[in-house]
Each structure stands twice: as C-alpha cells, then as structure tokens.
C-alpha cells in the first residue's frame, strides 16, 4: 500500500495547497495590519477585496489587460482604503473596541450592498492571469497558474515587508501601531499612520481578490466570504499580531485543507470550511497566541 503511494500527486496537491494558501496569506496579512494598529479584526476586509475585484473586472471589461487592471486596481484600492479609514474609522478612533468591531460589521454590509447596487448580481469572470498550460518540474506536472499565484502573493507580501523594514514611513507606522503615545512625542502623525495601514490592507486584499477570481469559472458578490474565513483561520493559526505568522499560518492551512480534502474521502470539497473553523477553535483552545504571536502582557 505504502509503496503504491502516488508521490507525484502529493507534490501536486501541496503546490495547489500553497497556491490557495498564498491567496489566504495576502488577505490574512491585511487582517493582521489592521489588528495590530486598532486591535480589531476588520470583518469588512473580504468585502473590500471583493469590491476591488469588481473594479478590476470593470477595467478588464473596458479593454484593459489583466495585469494593467491588476496594478491599477491595487492603486485605487489603496486610496479607497485610506478614504474608508478617514470617513468611517477616524470618528471612532478613540471608541471602545466593540464599537469599532460593529463599525466594521456595518462596513461589511455597506460594501456588499454597494457592490450589488453598482454591479448587477449576475455572474461574471476574470481572464486567467497566467497560462493554463502545465509545466514540467522534475518529472511532475504543475499548473503555471498555481505557481504564478504563489509567486504573486508572496511577492506582494515581500514588498510589504520591505516597506515596513526599510523605509522611514514603514518604521513610523510600526512604531505608531505598538506605541502611539511615544510615537506622537517624536512627531509621528499617528492618525495618518492608521489610514496608511488601511490603505495597505485594502491593497493587499485587492491582490487576494484578483488572484481568487480568475481561478473560478464565475464569481459574484459573495466571492471573498469563504476566503476571509480561511484568511482569518490562517492568521489565528500564525498569531493575529504577527505578519510572518499570518503568512506561515495561511500557507500551512492552504496545504492542510487541500491534503485533507484530497486524501480524506468524506471531507472532499464540501467540508473544507468546517476544517478551517476547527483549526481556529483548536488554536484558540490550545495556543491562543498562535504559532508566532506574542502573549500580551498587561501590567496591573
């Protein structure tokens, strides 16, 4: 039995899992960005990503190529995210966490409703970002689409890391997220750093939406809801306050649910979402800080 194991299939399934994990990772990083600075999970993150994907669809519909639409949408989403923070979040900046959570829930329905109002609820599709041909690596056939998705999502996360690690603005926004009081005293405009975080989160979400849609035969306004759950599970697995953890957690989750779906017959494709929820529950019970998160120390 063991000898007959199909290693080729395993390798293929791992790459497929990494590809979906990469998509989760971009959205998970968006969640972490906002969680670190405001202490709440932005429930509207998936809907914002869906809205961005519809913008991309409109651009492609008006004759732009996929990649032109991709980069334009990322830019539009960045400014959209900044705008949302200024209009909706800034007024509740000093409010209790629960208030902000409810605002993001409201934002969920607002963005979803706006997308239904602007784009009629018919199904649509985005062209493939990559060639659909398979590519042969060491005798195993992988899909270029999957490899491309992994590359783009990790590339986006990597660019974000470079920004935070090596630029002055990135340094200031890291400082503002951890210690707003002290950051103000050195002249950092903390409130704008929050807006910057929302902009970057929206841009990352746009990447994840635009990588999700082409892989599907068709999509509608509910496109990102399962992805948000997977991203949340990935972020919790890695530690909600750790960007690196969110990426590792999402990749692990992507591989895990794909392997379980492939090799455990009764899970199939239908039960993948419950598996993700089981991961959230398991992590919260066993290690609430996740793989890379740090326990918050409260001084009494």
């Amino acid at each position, binding site marked *: 039995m063991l000898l007959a194991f199909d290693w080729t299939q395993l390798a293929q399934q791992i790459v497929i899992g990494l590809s979906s994990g990469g998509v989760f990772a971009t959205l998970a990083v968006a969640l972490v960005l906002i969680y670190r600075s405001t202490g709440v999970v932005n429930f509207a993150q998936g809907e914002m990503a869906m809205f961005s994907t519809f913008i991309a669809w409109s651009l492609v519909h008006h004759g732009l190529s996929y990649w032109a639409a991709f980069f334009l949408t990322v830019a539009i989403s960045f400014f959209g995210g900044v705008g949302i923070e200024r209009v909706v979040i800034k007024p509740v900046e000093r409010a209790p966490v629960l208030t902000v959570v409810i605002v993001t829930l409201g934002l969920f329905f607002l963005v979803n409703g706006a997308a239904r109002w602007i784009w009629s609820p018919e199904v649509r599709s985005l062209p493939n970002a990559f060639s659909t041909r398979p590519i042969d690596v060491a005798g195993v056939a992988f899909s270029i689409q999957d490899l491309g998705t992994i590359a783009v999502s990790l590339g986006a996360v990597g660019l974000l890391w470079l920004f935070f690690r090596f630029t*002055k603005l990135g*340094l*200031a926004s*890291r400082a503002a997220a*951890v*210690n707003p*009081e*002290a950051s103000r*005293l*050195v002249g950092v405009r903390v409130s704008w750093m929050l807006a910057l975080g929302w902009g970057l989160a929206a841009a990352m979400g746009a990447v994840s939406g635009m990588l999700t849609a082409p892989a599907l035969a068709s999509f509608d306004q509910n496109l990102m809801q399962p992805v948000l759950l997977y991203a949340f599970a990935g972020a919790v697995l890695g530690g909600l306050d750790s960007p690196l953890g969110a990426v590792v957690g999402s990749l692990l989750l992507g591989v895990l649910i794909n392997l379980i779906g492939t090799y455990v017959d009764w899970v199939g494709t239908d039960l993948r979402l419950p598996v993700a929820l089981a991961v959230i529950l398991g992590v919260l019970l066993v290690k609430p800080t996740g793989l890379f998160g740090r326990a918050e120390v409260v001084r009494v």
Partner: protein
Amino acid sequence: MTARYGPVTALHGVSLSVGEGEAVAVLGANGAGKTTTLRAISGAVRRSGRIAFAGQSIARSSPEATARAGIAHVPEGRGTLTDLTVRENLRLGAYTRRDRAAIKEDEARVFGYFPRLRERRDQRAGTLSGGEQQMLALARALMLRPRLLLLDEPSLGLAPTVVGEIFRIVGELNEREGLAVLVVEQNAALALEASARAYVLEVGKVAIEGESAALRRDESVRRSYLGY
C-alpha cells in the same frame, strides 16, 4: 495653564518659564502635577491657558506639532519602542527631519555620549537594561535636535551610578550645546543640583519658585523635599 484628565483637573493654573539654554527643575510630591505639567506643554493632555514656545503659541498644538516645533519630550517610563532596535529608535527620533547628512552626524554624536548604545545598536530595545533604555530615550529625544528637552523622572527605578551618569550627560548638553532643559524629578537634591532655577508644585499649583541654589538652603524646602 490648567490641564485636565476627563473631569479631573490636575493643574490649577501653573505658570512657569524656561529661558533659552536654561535648566529648570520641577519638584513636588506624588500627584502634585509634575508629569501633567510636561504633558500639558507637549500637548499629550487636554489643557487650556497660554503656552508659548520661541514666540509662537503652542497652546493648541498636538504632540506631533510640538515635537516638530523643537520640543523633545522623554516621557515617564521612557517610552522606548521595545520591539524596535536601538538604531530604529534613533531613526524614529529624527522622523521629522529631512537632512540626511546631519542625521548621520547626530547619530554619531549621540553614540559619542552613550557608547553603550553603540555597542547594542542592532539589539531590540526591549532587551536593554533599565538604565540603557533611559539612555536610549534621551538619545532618541536628542535626534530631534530639540531646543527644549522635557525630562520626566529620568531617575525612576535606576541605580544611583546610572542616574549620576544620565544627569552628568544632561548637564553637559545644557552647558556645551545650550540645550534648554525642563526636568521633573522625585529626587529633589539631584534636580536642584542639576538646575539653575526650580519650581515646587503642590496639588496642581506652584507653591515655591526660585534659584535652585537658594532653594537648597531654604529651610522649608529642605524639610519637605530634601529630607534633612
């Protein structure tokens, strides 16, 4: 100026001044309003009244704006960013500045004052000792190239030798570089030695003010604050 935390008024009309290049101390018991005085100046607490710096009113300025105007505030508890490295903390101190070359020079100058920070420049600030973190907080404030330095309880929780070193460096900055300093201290003897003038606060008001040398000889100040 007066200042309040929500419904609680912490300062009831405190009036004080710091001259160009002058070192001034603010003394007083716990809860007298020393920290609030500094926070009111830098805008970290709601305040009213007149506050002017270098001829400009800063009574309505946010902390971001007072920092940009040239006031560096080293808060109580230091406010070092423990997740960032020593170097990153210093770069953050120079956040409002655009003059790259001068920032490089200042970094070298600050490392000259605090050689121990140079040794630990790539360590996370959270791994430093309390004394080193206080030095880092001071060094970060200097990276702003301030005209006025607000120091809140620099001696808090530190060993006497470290406190001595920090006050020696602050004194040097004041004398050699003409940096104006407003220092809040629990340790009155130390603060009076390091300053030219001093204010004693009592429940949100200035109770006594004068030359530090005179206050050191003053019978009532000695009994209440110096303990001998």
